[in-house]
């Protein structure tokens, strides 16, 4: 049978962001795949180097349109390390709270996209409806649904009062109940299982060889989560489990992310109930002493790393950002081999690609 190469994207049927795929098929079977990114490359690393440390907080927050807060958190944390600055406990807890709310909203958004792509529109509708709960909490907390501008170097710029804590706890309780339904769908629903089980399967070795991170790697049994393994913010004082699964297919990814939402809700509850009193920020100097730092954290999609170098001035000499989507893009062609064309959108959404993140 003759081979045909189909270009898909950069304007996309399956994803909302620009990425171009070249899928080679023989009849119904996919035999090869390649991709091209860079359509939303904005040169943010260079832009950061032209701004002051304080201004760059707002630049890095715009790397991603889903997980904006974690970028600012990891960046600020790096600068604070360079400044040898300890931030107040209340600030660490508030940072953690937003990180986890962001994870919840990111994972539910993903579940919705997956539902849509496997033709299970009900999951899409419900997941995006319930994602609004997380967005509402964040909106109430920071005044922004996605961009929070919560971080400042030396702490956070937003605080919670008793009423907001109470309101957030009520909403979290609501979301906890709804998550039981989603986990039930992922575990038991025949349509969901048939469309996702065994699709896009990767082994643990393949994940490790390609340096894949986050829920994708954990779905194949790579037991790494920086919240536990290299704790930052308030994670070393909180109780949560790291979720792993076997199989490395799209279903295992859904199972891992579903349970991670439950764990994130647990973390949010702990943060809100045990929020320490005190100030929310300390004063930071504008000039940062000469030095370099590697700052890491667990974004919703996995390990996020910032390398910041200071030359002693008030703007960074080098900011390097590696987002978790980049290594995931590397395994995408491997996942495609041997699947049918109908499963291509499932695999595309299964990786939870964030193209704006990868392109920077």
């Amino acid at each position: 049978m003759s081979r045909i190469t189909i270009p898909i994207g950069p304007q996309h049927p399956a994803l909302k962001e620009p990425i171009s795929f070249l899928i080679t098929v023989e009849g119904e079977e996919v035999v090869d795949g390649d991709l091209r990114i860079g359509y939303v490359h904005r040169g943010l690393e260079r832009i950061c180097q032209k701004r002051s440390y304080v201004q760059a907080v707002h630049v890095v927050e715009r790397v991603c349109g889903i997980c904006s807060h974690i970028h600012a958190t990891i960046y600020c944390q790096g600068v604070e390390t360079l400044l040898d600055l300890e931030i107040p406990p209340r600030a660490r807890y508030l940072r953690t709270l937003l990180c986890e709310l962001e994870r919840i909203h990111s994972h539910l958004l993903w579940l919705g996209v997956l539902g849509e792509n496997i033709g299970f529109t009900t999951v899409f509708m419900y997941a995006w409806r319930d994602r609004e709960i997380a967005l509402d909490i964040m909106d109430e907390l920071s005044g922004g649904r996605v961009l929070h501008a919560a971080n400042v170097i030396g702490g956070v710029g937003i605080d919670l009062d008793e009423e907001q804590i109470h309101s957030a706890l009520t909403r979290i309780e609501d979301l906890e109940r709804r998550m039981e339904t989603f986990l039930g769908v992922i575990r038991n629903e025949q349509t969901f299982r048939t469309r996702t089980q065994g699709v896009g399967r990767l082994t643990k070795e393949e994940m490790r060889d390609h340096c894949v991170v986050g829920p994708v790697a954990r779905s194949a049994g790579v037991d790494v989560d920086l919240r536990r393994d290299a704790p930052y913010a308030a994670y070393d004082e909180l109780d949560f489990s790291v979720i792993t699964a076997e199989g490395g297919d799209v279903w295992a990814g859904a199972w891992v992310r579903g349970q991670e939402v439950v764990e994130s809700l647990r973390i949010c509850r702990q943060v809100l109930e045990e929020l320490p009193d005190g100030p929310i920020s300390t004063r930071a100097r504008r000039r940062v002493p000469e030095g370099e730092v590697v700052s890491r954290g667990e974004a919703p999609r996995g390990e996020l790393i910032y390398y910041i170098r200071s030359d002693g001035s008030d703007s960074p000499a080098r900011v390097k950002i590696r987002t978790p989507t980049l290594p995931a893009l590397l395994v995408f062609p491997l996942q495609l081999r041997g699947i049918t064309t109908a499963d291509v959108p499932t695999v595309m959404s299964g990786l939870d690609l964030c193209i704006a993140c990868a392109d920077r």
Partner: protein
Amino acid sequence: MNIDRILDVFRAELSLDSLEVRDVPDDETIVALPSEEIHRAVHLLVERFDLRHLSTITGVDIGDEIELLYHFWAGRGLTLRTSLPKEDPHIATLTDVIPGASFYEREVWEMLGVTFDGHPNLQRLFLPEDWGEGSLPLRREEEK
């Protein structure tokens, strides 16, 4: 990750005059190595210590040289640092040892002009197709 054991292996197996080691805050060790020893060093990390998680490669233009930083992680951070001459910088690819290095090397190549010898597909990753030939966005010359 036992950093002392790794350093002992480096001292024993690599041809080095001396080994410059620096600890930076938040559990990161930076080891400076000559560029021709990087491939061998990474091979040792993978073979002896099963340390395969390359987080990324940072390239920095420091004026007369290009500095490369290979950030590894396994419970704590290990960064291998090397520098290359700015005129025609070359270094061996890591893709034969760690396939995950592919995109990181392509990025450093297009942004800073470092050629990774032996890379199977050294092509543009982020820059548009009509980006000027020889224009390297993260080089200092481009700052104007």
